[in-house]
């Protein structure tokens, strides 16, 4: 019962915060609400026994990506932003498509059949802690995708510098 109550609070808060984020006029307010949203999502991960990913969520999303967003938001003229309309002319079409997608996927979820459970039970993970169990899978079974991920991050660093640097083309 208490678990359902916790989940109900977090689900409600996440839904409301997500709606608040995308409807604010002032982008700085959006970023601030999104910080709160990411902390709620991290709490939901803790609830699902994924403590390492909860920490990564707070560090990478709240600490890294949101600061980047805040940095870019400062480019926007907030006074002009408050004056003009938030949504594009076809905003109603976007709403229709989003609701249609929601309904279709919710209907598709009813025919979901779970796979047989794997070997990583709570007791197994508790024995060697979440981070160690995760690391063992990541550095053996997923070593190759892990290397590709590091390459993607390298390309992103170089690409961001090339795109944002002034007068690189001479």
């Amino acid at each position, binding site marked *: 019962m208490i678990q359902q109550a916790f989940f109900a609070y977090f689900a409600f808060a996440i839904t409301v915060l997500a709606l608040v984020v995308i409807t604010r006029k002032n982008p700085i307010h959006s970023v601030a609400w999104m910080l709160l949203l990411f902390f709620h999502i991290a709490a939901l991960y803790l609830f699902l026994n*994924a403590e390492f990913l909860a920490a990564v969520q707070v560090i990478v999303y709240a600490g890294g990506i949101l600061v980047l967003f805040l940095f870019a938001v400062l480019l926007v003229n907030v006074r002009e932003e408050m004056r003009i309309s938030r949504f594009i002319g076809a905003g109603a079409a976007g709403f229709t498509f989003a609701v249609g997608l929601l309904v279709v996927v919710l209907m598709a979820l009813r025919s979901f059949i779970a796979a047989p459970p794997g070997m990583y039970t709570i007791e197994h993970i508790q024995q060697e802690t979440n981070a160690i169990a995760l690391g063992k899978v990541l550095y053996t079974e997923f070593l190759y995708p892990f290397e590709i991920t590091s390459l993607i991050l390298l390309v992103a660093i170089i690409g961001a510098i090339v795109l944002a640097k002034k007068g690189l083309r001479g």
Partner: protein
Amino acid sequence: MVPLSWYMVLSVIVFAIGVFGFLSRRNVILMFMSIELMLNGVNINLIALSHYLQDLRGQILAFFVIAVAAAEAAIGLAIVIALFRNKATAHVDDVKELRG
């Protein structure tokens, strides 16, 4: 015990809100934030499945999604800065030509 389907419904709702924001906001930065919202919806689903199916691979996939989201945010915001330098705008409907 919270049933798995509740988490899946929550993840679909967050994803749909992200789709709505991406399709209808005028500001490019808000569109990028909507993409992050969609990726977070997917992450909720992956981690819930990882817990309920007792398989760590869902968490690994969520880990990769976070890495790709960081790369995407860096590149996307660099594009916003380049756009702002050329056009002095962050609104999608002010950008009408491919020539920079």
